[in-house]
C-alpha cells in the first residue's frame, strides 16, 4: 500500500505541515523561550531578544536543523528507524568488505540449501552460494535503486512542480493535466511496462521508477508553492524587483525543503519495494546479480519452503525491516521538522 498508492496520507499532511513554520517572523519577546526557538526561521543568525527586564540578550541561535535533530532524538521510533536505515546503508556501501564470498560465487554445490550455521550465518542457497554475502550485495542493489530513482524524481518533479505552482495560469493547467493523466494509471503497471520494454537490469529499473514517480513530487511542490506564493515576503521580493527564478531559488525552494525531504524518505522505500517486487516476478535484476526480490522468488519455491525456510525468511525479513526503518524515520522527520504539528 504505502507501496504504490501515490496519494499517500503522509505526504499530504507533510504538505500542510510547513505552512506556518517558516514564515520569517521573529517571535515576540513575551513568548516562552521554547516557543521562541520554534519560531526562529532557518538562516537567521543570532537573535537579539529584549528580555523582560529590558536588557538586550543575545542567545546562541539554534538552526532549524539542530532543533529538528534534538526532536528526532527524543522520538524512540525515529531512532529505531534511523538505526535500521544506517545499518542498511552501511551494509550496502561496504558489501564487498562484509561479504565473505562473492555474490555469484558457488561455495560448495554439494551443500546446496544447507541450513544456517557458524560457517554461513544465513545458510546456502539452491546453487550453493552463501546467502549472507548475497544479502549484502542485494542491499547494495536496493540502496542504489532507492537513491537514484529518487534523484530522478527530484530532478524532474521539483522543477515542474515549481513552475506550475509559481506561474500558475496556463502553465499550471497544462503541466497538471499531464501530471493527472500519468497519476491515473497505477504506478506499478507503468513501471512493469517500461521494464518489459527496455529489458531487465539495474539501470532500467531505477530509470523507470524515477520517470513514473516524479508526478507525486511535482504535485507536492506545486501545492507548497501555491501557498508560499501568497506570502507577504514573496510579494515584497516581487515589489523589490526580484526575478521569478531568483524568488524561486532564494525564497520558495528553501521554504519547501522540509516536505521534500519527508517525501524523499518515503520515496526511497517505495522504490526499493518496487525493485524487489519486479525482481520477485522475474522482470527485475538479472541473475547472477543478487537482489532481495529474486532471492524471495527462489526461496518461495514450493519445494523449498517447508524444508529450507531460511532461503525465504532472510530476504523477506530484510525487505520488511528496510521498509519499517524508512517509514519510522520518515514519520520522525516529519514531526521533527514541523514543530507546530502535534500528531497523536
Amino acid at each position, binding site marked *: *500500500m*504505502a*507501496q*504504490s*498508492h*501515490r*496519494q*499517500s*496520507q503522509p505526504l499530504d499532511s507533510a504538505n500542510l505541515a510547513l505552512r506556518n513554520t517558516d514564515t520569517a517572523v521573529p517571535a515576540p519577546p513575551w513568548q516562552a523561550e521554547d516557543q521562541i526557538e520554534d519560531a526562529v526561521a532557518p538562516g537567521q543568525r543570532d537573535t537579539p531578544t529584549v528580555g523582560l527586564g529590558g536588557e538586550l540578550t543575545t542567545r546562541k541561535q539554534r538552526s532549524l536543523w539542530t532543533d529538528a535533530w534534538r526532536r528526532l532524538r527524543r522520538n524512540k*521510533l525515529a531512532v529505531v528507524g534511523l538505526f535500521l536505515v544506517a545499518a542498511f546503508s552501511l551494509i550496502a556501501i561496504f558489501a564487498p568488505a562484509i561479504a565473505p564470498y562473492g555474490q555469484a560465487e558457488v561455495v560448495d554445490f554439494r551443500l546446496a540449501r544447507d541450513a544456517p550455521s557458524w560457517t554461513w550465518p544465513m545458510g546456502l542457497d539452491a546453487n550453493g552460494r552463501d546467502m549472507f554475502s548475497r544479502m549484502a550485495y542485494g542491499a547494495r542493489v536496493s540502496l542504489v535503486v532507492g537513491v537514484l530513482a529518487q534523484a530522478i524524481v527530484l530532478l524532474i518533479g521539483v522543477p515542474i512542480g515549481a513552475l*506550475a505552482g509559481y506561474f500558475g495560469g496556463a502553465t*499550471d*493547467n497544462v503541466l*497538471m*493535466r499531464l*501530471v*493527472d*493523466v500519468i*497519476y*491515473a*494509471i*497505477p*504506478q*506499478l*503497471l*507503468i513501471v*512493469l*511496462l*517500461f521494464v*518489459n*520494454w527496455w529489458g531487465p537490469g539495474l539501470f532500467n529499473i531505477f530509470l523507470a521508477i524515477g520517470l513514473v514517480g516524479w508526478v507525486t513530487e511535482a*504535485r507536492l511542490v*506545486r*501545492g507548497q508553492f501555491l501557498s508560499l506564493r501568497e506570502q507577504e515576503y514573496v510579494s515584497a521580493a516581487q515589489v523589490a524587483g526580484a526575478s521569478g527564478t531568483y524568488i524561486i531559488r532564494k525564497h520558495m525552494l528553501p521554504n519547501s525543503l522540509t516536505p521534500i525531504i519527508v517525501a524523499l524518505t518515503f520515496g526511497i*522505500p517505495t522504490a526499493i*519495494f518496487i525493485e*524487489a*517486487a519486479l525482481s*520477485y*516476478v*522475474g*522482470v527485475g535484476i538479472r541473475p547472477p546479480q543478487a537482489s532481495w526480490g529474486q532471492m*524471495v522468488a527462489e526461496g*518461495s519455491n*514450493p519445494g523449498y*519452503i*517447508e524444508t529450507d*525456510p531460511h532461503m*525465504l*525468511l532472510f530476504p*523477506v525479513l530484510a*525487505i*520488511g525491516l528496510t*521498509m*519499517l526503518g*524508512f*517509514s*519510522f524515520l520518515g514519520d520522525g522527520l516529519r514531526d521533527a521538522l514541523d514543530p507546530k504539528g502535534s*500528531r*497523536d
Partner: protein
Amino acid sequence: MAGSLGAGALVAPAIGEDSREEAGPRMMRFAMNRIFWFIPTILVMAAFTFLIMHATPGSPFDVSDKQRPEDIRRLEALYGLDKPLPEQFVLYLWNAAHLDFGISYHARPQTVNEIIGRTFPISLHLGAMATLFAVVVGMTLGVLAAVNQNGWLDYTSVTMAVLFYSMPSFVMGFLLILLFVVWLPDIGVNLGFRVGGWDRPIDWILPTIALGAAPLATLARYTRSSMIEVIRSDFVRTARAKGLTEEGVVSKHVLKNALIPVVTLIGPIFAAVATGSFFVEQVFNIPGMGKFFVTSMQVKDQPMILAVVLLYGVFLAIMNLLVDLTYGVIDPRIRY
C-alpha cells in the same frame, strides 16, 4: 482547478459560506467535469500503453527457434500487426469502444474477454474481502484506541499499526506462510491452511490478511488521530458539559465527525489493494488477473496487457470519483 482527477480536487471545507441549495447543481457540474476528463485520460492511457507495447522488441509470435520467419509474418498479418501503427491503434480503439478486446496471442483461441471474465472476478473477490477486512477492523481498532486513549488496547493497536502500515503485502504473505506452514504446522494444518490454492473458503483467509494488513494499519492510525482531534474540540466539551453520557458523546458527536475525513483514504486503499493483489496472487498461487497479467507481460500478449491496463485505469478512476462524490454527500461543508 488542477488536480480535478485526484482526491486533491476537493476544496477545503468553507463553513457557512454558501447556501446549501446550490450544492446539488454544483456537485453535478463537478461530476460532469470529472467524467469529461475521464475520456482524454483513458485515451492517453491507451495510446501510451499501445506505444510502449509496440516499442517493445521482439514479435509476440516469435516463441521458438524452430519457427520459420514467414510463419511469424503470416501470424502477424492474421492479427493485423502488419498494418501501419496509427491504423492499428484506431482499429483497436474502435473495437475497445465496443468492448471487444480481441483474441489473446498466448492463450489462443480464448478471447481476452473470456480470460478477464474468468480471472477478474477472483481478483475482485480477493480485493473486496481485503478492503472490507481493512475497513471494518481498521476503523473499529482506531475508534476503540481513541476512546481508551493510553490504555492497553490503544498501545496494542498503535503498535500493530506501526508494524504493519509500511509492510508490503508480499512480505506479509510470506511471513504468514512461514508462520502457519513452517513454524506452527500443527495449528496451520488443523485450520486447513496450505501454501497455495483458492478453491476452498479456508484458502481465502491468509491472502485476505496479507493484502488487508497495510490498509488496515493506515486506517486504524488515521481513524485514531481523527477521533482524538474531534474529542478535543469545543463542541464535544459542550456536549459533555450539558450532561451527555460518554457513550452519547461518542456515538452522537464524535463518531460522525471523525469518520468523515477517513472516507478520503478509501480511494488510495482501492489503488493499494489493486496493485497489491498482483503480488499476493503470485505468493498464494491464486488464479486471478494479477497473476495472469505478469505471465502476459512475459510473453508479450499485447491484447491482454492493453485490456488489463485499461480495466485497472477505468476501475480506479470510477472508484475515486465515487469516493469524492460520497465525501460531498456526507459532509455538506465540502464545496466542489
